[in-house]
């Protein structure tokens, strides 16, 4: 398995990168400065496309030779034909999406596999803050106050498993991880994931009938 060097990209993105088959076609939603796409292109011969809302970041991606569309990911995903990609990556964005079910439906339509990662709201540090101090929790992964948080969806690993089942997706793989505040280092959590994991990474696919 090709695994990115620690200095290259964020830990959760390294986990995602390691799961991608060489030579795949990948769509990275909210691709930021394009670190993951650049790594995949350089190390796994991936044909990648990114979508990024921020104009400066999108321009930076294009300027480094990546194929990136500047725009709103909810709208941009609608234009692709079915199964245009082997993987569609939605990293740490699901908790900010207004209509997650609709978005996931589109992603599973245009991609054979969808990789979703999000911060786990049932991490023990969050549970303790709510239980002991009675305040809207904050931690390194979720640093916002209730009034300025872009994270409008409160998801836990357990919630996501149920959600995936309910709306018709197979979970092919679940990777629970913890990582340091900078996100550069981390480790995989194997036991009591729902309480110990800072992030969940899921590879899902649509249950296609017939």
């Amino acid at each position, binding site marked *: 398995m090709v695994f990115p060097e620690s200095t290259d990209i964020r830990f959760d993105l390294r986990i995602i990168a390691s799961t991608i088959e060489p030579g795949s076609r990948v769509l990275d939603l909210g691709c930021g400065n394009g670190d993951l796409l650049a790594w995949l292109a350089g190390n796994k011969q991936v*044909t990648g*496309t990114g979508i990024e809302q921020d*104009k400066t970041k*999108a*321009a930076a*991606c*294009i*300027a*480094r*030779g*990546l*194929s*990136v*569309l*500047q*725009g709103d990911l909810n709208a941009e995903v609608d*234009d*692709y*034909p079915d199964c*245009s990609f082997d993987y569609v990556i939605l990293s740490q964005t699901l908790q900010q999406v207004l209509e997650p079910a609709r978005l996931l439906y589109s992603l599973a339509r245009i991609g054979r596999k969808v990789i979703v990662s999000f911060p786990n709201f049932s991490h023990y540090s969050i549970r303790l803050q709510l239980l002991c101090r009675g305040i809207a929790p904050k931690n390194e992964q979720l640093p916002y106050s209730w009034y300025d948080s872009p994270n409008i969806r409160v998801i836990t690993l357990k919630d996501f498993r149920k959600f995936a089942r309910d709306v018709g997706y197979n979970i092919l793989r679940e990777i629970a991880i913890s990582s340091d505040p900078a996100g550069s280092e981390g480790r995989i959590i194997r036991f009591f994931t729902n309480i110990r994991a800072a992030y969940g990474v899921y590879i899902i696919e649509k249950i296609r009938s017939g």
Partner: protein
Amino acid sequence: MTTEAIQPAPLTAVKQHYTFAEGPEGLVLESGARLGPVTLAYETYGTLNAARDNVILVAHAFSGDSHAAGYYPGDPEGEKPGWWDFMIGPGKGIDTDKFFVVCPNILGSCMGSTGPSSLNPATDAPYGLDFPMMTIGDIVSTQKTLMDHLGIRRLHGVVGGSVGGMQVLEWCVRYPQFLRSAVAIATTMRHSALAIAFNEIARQSIMADPNWNKGNYYGGSKPDMGLAVARMVGHVTYLSDEAMRRKFGRKLQDKETFSFGFDGDFQIESYLRHQGTKFVNRFDANSVLYITKASDYFDVVERMGKIERPSKKNSEKRKYLVISYTSDWLYPTYQAKELVQTLKRSDQDVSFCEIEADCGHDAFLIPDERLTTLIRGFFDGLS
């Protein structure tokens, strides 16, 4: 030792000409009409490599010319360089140390290529309205003839803004195999009613000038007033509300109070008059009629949707870059997005970026490091 950065010497430009279709059949245009002989003026910068594939074709906008960069040897002190000099040159966004840049003047223009002001060999007088209606397709097919003449095997890229961007799109549908990449800036797959409306005002303004004389004014008084007004209208569509507010507002020109007359009080009035006069000195009114009409006829929506899908295994996928500007109200971002959508639907490798700029449609002609960086990175990412 000096610590100053060494500025590369400015490019020296030489206007060249290529004449073809000299036989009695001439060139058959999209309308079915025949035209010949056909001359294209063009300039080149940089060096063609041995493989003859390091070529970037720069397509100029409606009133542009082949002088995209550098200075002519005889230019007087203080003369302006070519219209995209900030983009083209050694070490610039389109790096002439790497690429061989060709910029042809379009068919129908009056800057060295055959157009309505050229001599009609049948009559030995300027064509005037006898010049056959040419299309963006004809402009591009004559550019292809020029590429073949120069022995160019393939274009590393074709790039252009506005009507230049239309030529880029026409290249994409007409000669896809000849292209490695395409960059379409501030352009559209077809004119909106708004764009046609402004072009029609420009044409009517020219044709209403008594000197226009049904296009037959060469050798006599020219329809300068009509042409100047046409340019004034055009110029407004190239600016934006923000840009005009910032630059002119309601400021008065060389006076403290209103004149209570029609001499022109506001700075914007005097600016537009200046733009109109400047244009009259360098451009032909009939060329405005022909080129605006060609851009109104232009429509690649259907053909764009039918561009061949890239094969799965090909290692060298053609790449597209679409750029729009936030304040462009002539070809607004939604039109660029329609182009992107069309390309996505046929599985093309397309990048898109909207640039935040308040100077309107003409933003691509104003030095901007963001545009330069985008284009440099895009072309470098291919090699």
